[in-house]
């Protein structure tokens, strides 16, 4: 089984030294911006305004440019997502095999819309364009773990794997 990514539960837990380390690593390389953003998001789960100011300072890139890139690419998050990020693949194959129903079911079970996070901060629901598991459609990814040929009826069972301390609240649904 694919391991979940090592993100700390508290997105603010990452110390500034970690950001400095990332910035130090990429500072003198060519084409550093996207990789820096990737690593910071991987560490903190999202990219805060403070981080962008630090990047701007360290890499000598105008804040405006950083925001252009951040908001252009759907991948980056500007606010903390939930601890568990559910990405439903909406590639053509998945679409034809019912990713729409999966999304609807997830929205219903979690009580949120695409792009939102549950009020307890546990689950974040989003879609991705294609994860390249077209032969195993429909697919979804939860914190890096790929679930294939998912039936909407399996949703509750899959979420149960991830509910952690939030077990009760999911069971109620």
């Amino acid at each position: 089984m694919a391991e979940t990514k090592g993100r700390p539960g508290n997105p603010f837990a990452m110390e500034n030294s970690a950001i400095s380390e990332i910035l130090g690593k990429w500072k003198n390389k060519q084409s550093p911006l996207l990789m820096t953003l990737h690593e910071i998001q991987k560490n903190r789960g999202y990219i805060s305004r403070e981080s962008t100011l630090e990047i701007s300072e360290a890499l000598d890139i105008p804040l405006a440019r950083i925001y252009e890139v951040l908001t252009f690419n759907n991948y980056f998050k500007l606010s903390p997502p939930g601890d568990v990020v559910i990405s439903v693949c909406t590639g053509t194959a998945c679409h034809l095999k019912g990713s729409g129903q999966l999304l609807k079911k997830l929205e219903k079970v979690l009580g949120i819309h695409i792009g939102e996070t549950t009020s307890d901060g546990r689950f974040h629901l989003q879609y991705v364009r294609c994860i390249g598991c077209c032969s195993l459609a429909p697919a979804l990814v939860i914190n890096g773990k790929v679930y294939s040929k998912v039936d909407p009826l399996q949703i509750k069972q899959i979420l149960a794997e991830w509910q952690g301390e939030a077990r009760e609240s999911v069971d109620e649904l």
Partner: protein
Amino acid sequence: MKDKSTKICLKINHKSVEVVQGATILEAAIKARVNIPTLCKHPDLVATGACGICVVRVAGRSQLLRACCTPAEDGMDVVTNDPEIIATRRTVLELILSTHPNECLTCGRNGTCELQQLAEDFGIREKTLPALVSDVPKDCSTGAIVLDSRKCIKCGRCLTVCQEEQNVWALTFKNRGLSTLMTPAGDISLDDSPCVKCGQCSAHCPVGAIYEQDDTGRVWRALSDPGKFCIAQIAPSVRTSLGSAFGYPVGTNLVGQIYDALRKIGFKKVFDTNFGADVTVMEEASELVKRLEENEERLPLITTCCPSWVDYMEKFYSDMIPYFSSCKSPHAILGTLTKTYYAQKMGIDPSNIVVVSIMPCTSKKYEIRRNEYMAASGYFDVDISITSREFIRMIKQAGIIFSELDFLAVADSPLGDYSGAGTIFGASGGVMEATLRTAHYFMTGTEMPRMGLKEIQGLEGIKETSISIGSHELKVAVAHGLKNVEFIIEGVKNAIRNKAPLPYHFIEVMACPGGCVGGGGQPWPITNEIRIKRAQGLFKDDSMKKNRSSHENESIKELYKDFLGEPLGPRAMELLHNSYQVRDKYKR
């Protein structure tokens, strides 16, 4: 490498035309006197290819090509109009209009809008597509420039100017696709961004998405108040910039008509900012002389007439503050003198005086309230600053027929008398030359032998020269367009750091390309061609003046004798000088 001067020959609508290698199809068409409609392309900016209005057909190519950014090739056979091309342009136009609010009647660009003109040319008579207008509130936070992103057509001109030309990076595109939004970076207001209010975004905007804050209502209110004594002043560049709005050739000096118009509008007195410029020269030349002779570690001297440049320096180069001239800008100086010297002389209560500046500039609206020094006399130096565009509207509202105005009208004395040095403040290189003329006189007692320094005029981004004044060999630099500042300032910083000889002793900076003639509040369209013609008008005005140096201006002499005392004297320092502070690029 291909030789840049290699000529190639192509056909545009069966007409042969020869252009240099590297020219675009659009440039070839202009040369062939064939009109290709454009929208996103600005004559001075690199084509972004955003709109697709300029598509043409090239024989042998299956895809229609954009004339604005496709290089012309030898032997190319271009057709600029056929039914499919016109239908495509028309559909694209309809698509753009479907995202554009139907607000022409209440839009600041009504009549000067490039999109409106195309809609007229293509005879768009009905809305065939559902409206997709975004719902974004206006950003009026700066008090100088208004952003109305709903009207933005995403041509990207303002971004190119703000980022590449001005190096300010206040504006960005946020999001993508249909949600693309022209906005300050990171969900902040324009006032919280690094914006320096230069207004070049609005100067380049083809539609009504960025325009000046309109203060004409406040002016009319002041004029209608019988208790107020309203005094107007006009900036140097305005006199040669107004013509296009009234059917005169670009660059025509209309100063007489403008004085007359201001009187007809109801101003009790009409002064000329050129007088303020002459005072600025007296003070700044004295500063230069002082630093050259006693205070060399405070060289180079850097000019501060341009409020956007001041704002930029405070945000981006605050370590250069000690090198700035402490002089206020000419209109602020004239405002101060109006409320002190003039008020005393005429026995008017300064609290009843309303000074209105007619400026080429959006940033002056910000400048008049930027710190307490702007009210050093106890009263605001300038009460309202309006742009030339607002002034044009006031003339029209007042029912004035411009051609009927008195072209021989003169400004009121004494704050309306000016030398040639004052008038050239409106063009890049002007402040430098005007100050050098007087500094030369102060140091040597003789007039500068050569006037009209061509090497510091014109649109080259950085202009350098050196001038001998007595025993001093003065190296000077003139920059305009803020992207050109970096090179100069970094050169100076390096020299200071390494204790090397300074590359420059005196630096003039204007935020807007070409100086004030290309200011952000000037009448549309604003292109380099137009900037040059307006500047030529000012230099011509100078060359025709009998009196070309500020220190020769009799009213100036009288001012110092009767009121100010010496340049840089206590009274001058109190009223005419300024201070600067470090400012954050981002207020949050």
